[in-house]
Structure formats: structure tokens, C-alpha cells
């Protein structure tokens, strides 16, 4: 199937090749093989440590460049959690901050040319998405007991309508982790594939300048999308957390 994409007047496009998982040291890919995914996941963690731990270790009263970036990010996520979930959601701020920083760093590292976008793989984002889903569901039952199920029973709706709404609510509840993870993976994959396709147009000399300017413009857009998708993932986590803490409509 991939060979057919070679058509199109001598142009060769391989927009999906960049998402291939390769073993770092050769050999078969098994359960515990070190691959480029492993490498870039570790790089994301190291980037977070460099940004959040090393820059703030001096604890200056007047923050330097690195420390103010770290403080801005911290304040941004803290305010988001406080605004969406309310005061009692602040307890879960560390988890949400971790998610935000990890997705942000993984998205940005993927924008480095020749690097690998770990968040473009559904395997990575599904773990994050289902992690949120399971955590929030367990939390909802622990905090509210059986009355958590009132999330599915819209008490404001007319009585005959409620069973229908309950079915819709239950379906939408279980689609959450799927859409949550596929949104992130799909956005990252689509953006990087578009970049690769535009880079492929540069093979034709006549439209090469347009293609290169196009790649630059789309790269700028991708930087924006990376940040917005990290924000969207985090704020949806906050919304789900709010539903778990206050299930009554």
C-alpha cells in the first residue's frame, strides 16, 4: 500500500515514515526493547527536570529567565485547576501539572527536526487518557459512593426523558478516554504528516520557494497546536475531575 504513494509524477512522499518505531541498538522489538520512543520519552522527562528543578533550585527572590518560565507555567496550571475544579480540586494539582508538563515537553521535543513525536502514538496517549479516566472514575466512587451514578441521571430533565438521557450520558462517559487520547495523537500525527507533505513539494524546483515558506508557516502553526493540545488535554482532565468531585447536575 505504501508503494502506491510513490506515484504522483515522480514525487516521493513518505509522510508516515517518521512515526515508525525503530530499535535503538538493532534486533527485534520486544516488550522491553529500547526504541526511539523510549529515548524521546526519557528526553521529555529530562527536559522537565531541567526546566522545573534545575532552574528553580536557587530559589531567587527576583527570578531569572529559567525560573520565571517555571513559575509562569506553575501559576498558569494552578489557576486553571482552581478555576475549573474549585478549591477542593487543588489537592490533585500535582497530577495535572505532571500531565501538562509531560505532554507540553513531548510535543515540543517532537518539533525538533529528525526527532520523534512520542505523543503522535495512540499507545502513548491512550495510557495517559485511560489513566485519567480510571483515576477519575475511582475517585468519583470513593468520594461520593453510589451517588456518583447520579452523574448519569439528569434530575433537571422531565421524568420520561431521563432514561434516554441516561443512555446518552453513559455512552458519552465511556467515549471520553477514547476521544481524549485520540484527539492528542491525531492532532500531532496530522500536523507532522502535513509538514512532511509540504517538505515533499520542495522536490519540484518551480514551487520549491512556496513550499519552503509553507513549511515555515505550518511549523509556526504546529508550535501553537502543540501548546494548545497540551492545554486542551489538561483542561479536559480538570473538567472530568470536576464531574467526579461534584457529580450532581
Amino acid at each position, binding site marked *: *500500500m*505504501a508503494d*502506491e504513494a510513490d506515484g504522483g509524477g515522480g514525487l516521493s512522499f513518505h509522510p*508516515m515514515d517518521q512515526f515508525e518505531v525503530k530499535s535503538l541498538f538493532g534486533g527485534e522489538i520486544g516488550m522491553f526493547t529500547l526504541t526511539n520512543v523510549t529515548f524521546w520519552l526519557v528526553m521529555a522527562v529530562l527536559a522537565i527536570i531541567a526546566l522545573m528543578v534545575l532552574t528553580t533550585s536557587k530559589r531567587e527572590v527576583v527570578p531569572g529567565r529559567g525560573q520565571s518560565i517555571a513559575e509562569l507555567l506553575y501559576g498558569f496550571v494552578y489557576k*486553571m485547576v482552581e*478555576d*475549573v475544579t474549585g478549591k477542593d480540586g487543588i489537592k490533585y494539582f500535582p497530577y495535572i501539572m505532571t500531565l501538562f508538563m509531560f505532554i507540553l515537553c513531548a510535543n515540543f521535543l517532537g518539533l525538533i527536526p529528525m526527532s520523534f513525536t512520542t505523543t503522535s502514538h495512540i499507545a502513548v496517549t491512550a495510557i495517559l487518557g485511560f489513566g485519567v479516566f480510571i483515576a477519575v472514575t475511582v475517585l468519583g466512587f470513593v468520594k461520593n459512593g453510589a451517588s456518583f451514578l447520579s452523574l448519569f441521571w439528569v434530575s433537571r430533565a422531565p421524568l420520561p426523558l431521563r432514561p434516554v438521557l441516561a443512555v446518552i450520558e453513559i455512552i458519552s462517559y465511556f467515549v471520553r478516554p477514547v*476521544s481524549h487520547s*485520540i*484527539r492528542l495523537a*491525531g*492532532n500531532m*500525527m*496530522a500536523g507532522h504528516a502535513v509538514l512532511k507533505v509540504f517538505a515533499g513539494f520542495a522536490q519540484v524546483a518551480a514551487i520549491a520557494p512556496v513550499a519552503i515558506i509553507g513549511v515555515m508557516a505550518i511549523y509556526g502553526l504546529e508550535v501553537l497546536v502543540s501548546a*494548545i493540545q497540551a*492545554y*486542551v488535554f489538561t*483542561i*479536559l482532565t480538570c*473538567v472530568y475531575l470536576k464531574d467526579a468531585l461534584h457529580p450532581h447536575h
Partner: protein
Amino acid sequence: MEGELAHIGAGLAAIGSGAAAIGVGHVAGNFLAGALRNPSAAAGQTATLFIGIAFAEALGIFSFLVALLLMFAV
């Protein structure tokens, strides 16, 4: 023959991306219309704006995923 049909299907699935574009434009346009009427209330609603955009966009991403599956996985 099956491969060609898969390509046609992928093209049809791409219509969903256009539909998602209409949805996202609707959300953002209505937000802007509201924000210009009452700019002081706009700052507090940016989170709602992004949630709305995310929900509208998710369905477009689903259609893109269907297209990808038809192109590379079927």
C-alpha cells in the same frame, strides 16, 4: 479493486474534516461575536472556548483517523 475502494473511502472520510472546520469556526466566531459585545466577560470564558473547540475538533480527528486506517491499515 479493494485498494481503490479504500482510497475512495478515505477521500469520503476526509469530508468529515471539512465538517469539523465548520464546527470549530462556528464556536470561535460566536465567541468573538459575544466577546465584542461584552469584552469584560470574554477573559473568563476562554477556557470554555477551548473546551468547545476541542469537542468540535475531536469528531474531525475521528474522520481523519478513519481515512488513515483506510489508507494504511486496510
